[in-house]
């Protein structure tokens, strides 16, 4: 029963998601030392005295890391701080030999940016929906070493190879509402970083680490208690983990309980002090603003970096739409899958078929089959030239569309066999021989007199409808019989 008019029906609890992304900078050496950066190397072989925090060592900033941060900031529409500062964040952990991490909490290198990402939504997931998320800041900071827990001997093994590697921490505002949005935002960020070359973005190798801050609330009301979702090593799992947490929190609140927040001891904003060994980092807008006498290799010039930015994914998508006349949702899929653009363009080279007619095969048939078996484009059993051959056969009328799809399946299953081989083997060729078709049609009509009568009756009914029942039935039947024989 409806209540008093002054009472509104309570709104649904919705999720609020913010992300903290740590992107490992793609550089030869670490942030403050000349040790090498590699994914796997013998333990503690990529460690200098500074990385091991031995007394008497000092940090020296890597120019490449600064350039990477500026490049990333520009690509994400940030304001680059001409002057940024370094801080120490103190906490105790065995993989942090100095007892503090050098970071840029107070005044980071880039602030106030925006990431535009897209989702495929709508009824058939064919509509490209654009969304944005604000970037609060991008800061340079050190990575920690790796600890391996040996529970058997009750000890932790420490490898400092990763200690001191440069990271860009990107803080995204809580503008997202579910796992799908967060995953799409991360995917777009991954594509941007990979296009820039500032981070290889491989989540499974820890090059891109995402922590999600999740809370729920009713729209318009204050934000709820946040919990953190961590240790995620794939974009897909990120979406699921976030959605699970949102549902869990909703369940907790609906039961009348409160969401518990387990903050780490160093989460409270204490333990920060300015880094006394590093003067402020200055970057220059253009060559004109360089101080006289400065060595070129000591200057990071924003204008130069801006001019050198490569083509970003969003621009690439628009270009593909323009060049090939394909739909935005197709372009979205092309850019989203690693290697798909190259595959598509290779097919186009080998066939005369129009791009608009080829794209469906690539984004639906090919991608559909790949996703079903969790494969990447590079693992496709059907090569671009093989697909092109199949499409040519369809285009020239040798096979029908439905047969083409069948042949595709067969080609997928038995990698290496060509379309032509399969068609000839299974006699799937299009029958266009008029005489042959004539005799088949006559045979069918002769052997199904009931069907013929049903069809004629139906047509009669339609004609009567059209003439509002005034047609002469005998005449109509004769005319129809003539028309259909």
């Amino acid at each position, binding site marked *: 029963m409806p209540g008093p008019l002054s009472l509104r029906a309570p709104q649904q609890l919705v999720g609020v998601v913010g992300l903290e992304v740590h992107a490992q900078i793609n*550089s*030869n*050496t670490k942030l403050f*030392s*000349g*040790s*090498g950066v590699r994914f796997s190397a*013998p*333990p*503690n*072989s*990529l*460690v*200098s*005295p*500074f990385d*091991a925090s*031995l007394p008497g060592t000092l940090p*020296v*900033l*890597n*120019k*490449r*890391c*600064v350039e990477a941060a500026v490049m990333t900031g520009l690509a994400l529409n940030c304001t680059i701080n001409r002057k940024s*500062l370094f801080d120490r964040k*103190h906490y*105790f*952990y*065995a993989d942090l030999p100095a007892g503090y991490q050098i970071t840029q909490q107070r005044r980071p290198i880039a602030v106030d940016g925006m990431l535009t990402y897209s989702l495929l939504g709508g009824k058939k997931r064919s509509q490209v929906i654009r969304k944005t998320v604000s970037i609060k800041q991008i800061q340079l900071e050190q990575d920690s070493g790796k*600890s*391996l*827990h*040996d*529970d058997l001997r*009750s*000890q*932790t*093994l*420490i*490898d*400092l190879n990763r200690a001191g590697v440069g990271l860009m921490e990107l803080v995204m505002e809580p503008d997202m509402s579910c796992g799908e949005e967060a995953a799409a935002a991360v995917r777009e960020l991954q594509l941007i970083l990979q296009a820039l070359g500032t981070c290889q973005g491989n989540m499974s190798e820890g090059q891109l680490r995402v922590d999600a801050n999740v809370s729920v609330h009713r729209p318009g009301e204050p934000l709820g208690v946040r919990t953190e979702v961590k240790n995620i090593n794939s974009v897909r799992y990120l979406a699921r983990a976030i959605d699970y947490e949102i549902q869990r929190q909703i369940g907790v609140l609906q039961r009348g309980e409160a969401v518990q927040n387990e903050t780490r*001891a160093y989460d*409270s904003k*204490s*333990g920060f002090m*300015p*880094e*006394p*060994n*590093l*003067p*402020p*980092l*200055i970057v220059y807008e253009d060559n004109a603003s360089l101080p006289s006498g*400065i060595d070129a*290799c*000591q200057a*990071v010039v924003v204008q130069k970096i801006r001019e050198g930015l490569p083509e970003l994914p969003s621009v690439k998508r628009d270009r593909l739409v323009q060049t090939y006349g394909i739909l935005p949702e197709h372009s979205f899929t092309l850019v989203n899958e690693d290697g798909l653009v190259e595959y598509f363009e290779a097919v186009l080279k080998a066939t005369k078929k129009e791009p608009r007619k080829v794209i469906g095969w690539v984004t639906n048939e090919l991608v559909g089959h790949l996703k079903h078996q969790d494969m990447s484009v590079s693992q496709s059993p059907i090569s671009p030239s093989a697909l092109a051959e199949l499409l040519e056969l369809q285009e020239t009328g040798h096979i029908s569309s439905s047969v083409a799809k069948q042949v595709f399946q067969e080609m997928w299953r038995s990698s290496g066999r060509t379309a032509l081989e399969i068609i000839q083997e299974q006699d799937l060729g299009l029958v266009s021989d008029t005489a042959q078709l004539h005799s088949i049609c006559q045979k069918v009509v002769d052997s199904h007199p009931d069907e013929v009568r049903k069809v004629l009756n139906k047509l009669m009914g339609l004609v009567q409808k059209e003439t509002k029942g005034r047609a002469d039935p005998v005449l109509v039947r004769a005319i129809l019989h003539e028309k259909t024989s």
Partner: protein
Amino acid sequence: MSVFSLAAKRTCRGVSCLKITRYSVTNVENFHRRRNRCLQSHITNVTRLFSSHPHNSKVPEVATWELVPEDQLPPPAHIPTDLVDKLERLALVDFRTKQGLACLEKAIRFADQLHVVDTSGVEPMDSVLEDRALNLRDDAVMEGDCAEELLQLSKNTAEEYFVAPPGNIPLPKREERAALLKHSEL
């Protein structure tokens, strides 16, 4: 020797006087005790004699500082138990004895004197290097590959790894710690 005599000249003014005098006396005493055992302190002692030479003294004859009167200082800070707990957690130091807390309070009171300084219109400085240029390094590998040397510095290693105690053993909650810290006076 003049350090010694200087200490004797200083007078204690009221309750808020700090125990600097006694500290420096003890220090000099220890100095002389260690002199005969430690080469380094002997060298330092010689240097000290020179710097305290009447013609070359860097130490003023009379104290040049004054204690700040109590009324110019902000109210004394009281440290609640929760804060003590948090500080102990951050610093990994147990100090919740009467003496430990008194020491902390006196240290805070000493620092309170900074409030007397007028800093309006002055930008905070966080490094004496702030007007120097930050040196940028070329991205070329120059270091590393010294695992053996580094591992030798550690008492406990396993193959090529440093060995540390398991995880981060979290400090027990205050209620649980009460049982552990029976000598605590809180």
